[in-house]
């Protein structure tokens, strides 16, 4: 019965599009967003998360603008020597490519979910989760290097402005926590997809999980630009 009601809603909303559609969606006596409720709620959660990460990045901007001490040179802090070559910022570049690749496999998983190809969907989600786990692994390596070798602490460091450590651990730590939760979330949903839990309910859940995962990638785009490259 509920299915029939929502189909009727779909038909009425498609009559208007553009800005007339915005007015119609908000003012008609019906559900405003013609999407599954889980997807609307995930978008609203991601909106709140946008504000959290924006506040972190804004506070980073404020402390970096206001310090009278030289800001540590990130391309040297995050450089690695691979096979005798000293390459600046290389670890961060690899982490960026890994996260983009995982976003690609996630987009594929959503597509194969709607085609009701369970096994491929679950496999692609597991690949996404593994790429995410390797990202967290590299972050652990990066943190260890910074804490043990460079002596960077949240309250100070030998390279320059002491706000560098607090901004770094706060922002990348919170992002890494999001990636870790995403890996768990992906693994759980992948298992349920493989088991066939969504055969009757539909595969919107894969798209919802995908929204979260793409958001994690999206946040990294901003962290990469502002914290590592600026």
């Amino acid at each position: 019965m509920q299915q029939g009601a929502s189909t009727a809603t779909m038909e009425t909303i498609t009559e208007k599009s553009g800005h007339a559609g915005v007015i119609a969606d908000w003012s008609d006596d019906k559900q405003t967003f013609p999407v599954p409720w889980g997807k609307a709620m995930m978008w609203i959660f991601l909106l709140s998360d946008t504000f959290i990460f924006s506040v972190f990045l804004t506070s980073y901007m404020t402390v970096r603008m206001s310090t009278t001490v030289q800001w540590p040179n990130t391309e040297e802090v995050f450089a690695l020597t691979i096979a005798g070559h000293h390459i600046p910022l290389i670890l961060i570049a690899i982490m960026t490519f890994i996260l983009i690749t995982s976003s690609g496999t996630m987009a594929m998983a959503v597509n194969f979910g709607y085609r009701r190809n369970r096994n491929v969907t679950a496999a692609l989600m597991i690949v996404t989760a593994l790429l995410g786990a390797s990202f967290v692994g590299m972050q652990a390596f990066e943190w260890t290097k910074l804490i043990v070798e460079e002596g960077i602490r949240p309250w100070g460091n030998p390279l320059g402005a002491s706000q560098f450590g607090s901004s770094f651990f706060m922002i990348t730590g919170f992002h890494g926590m999001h990636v870790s939760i995403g890996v768990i979330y992906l693994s759980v949903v992948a298992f349920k997809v493989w088991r066939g839990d969504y055969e009757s309910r539909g595969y919107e859940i894969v798209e919802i999980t995908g929204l979260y995962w793409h958001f994690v990638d999206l946040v990294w785009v901003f962290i990469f630009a502002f914290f590592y490259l600026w």
Partner: protein
Amino acid sequence: MTEHAEGQQHPLGIYFWIWGLLFVLSTFSYLVDYLQLQGYLRWGLILLFMFLKAGFIIAIFMHMAWERLALVYAILLPPTLLLVLIGLMAIEGNYTFLTRGIFFDEPPAPIGHVQNNESQAH
């Protein structure tokens, strides 16, 4: 708008295209650092590649381009308020920097000038 009835279904090709584009754009933003570009050129290119990547991820991977405008506005308009916060905090940051320049022992370091011994001074 048939894709809404059965969820978001699009040809696989578009995902491969965007995937490739994101790789290229990430390489470009890495090159900005690798080639040691400085000043407004560096900041402008960083922002350009960042917004392009963010736009493609939101529009294609997160399917925002195919959502109804009511949802697009509900999600994308509130973050514009953050511009006010960023503006206010930029003013605050500048003010703190100038105050520190006046009241700390040493004059503020010019941007780009290395002062290694200053962290011990405070």
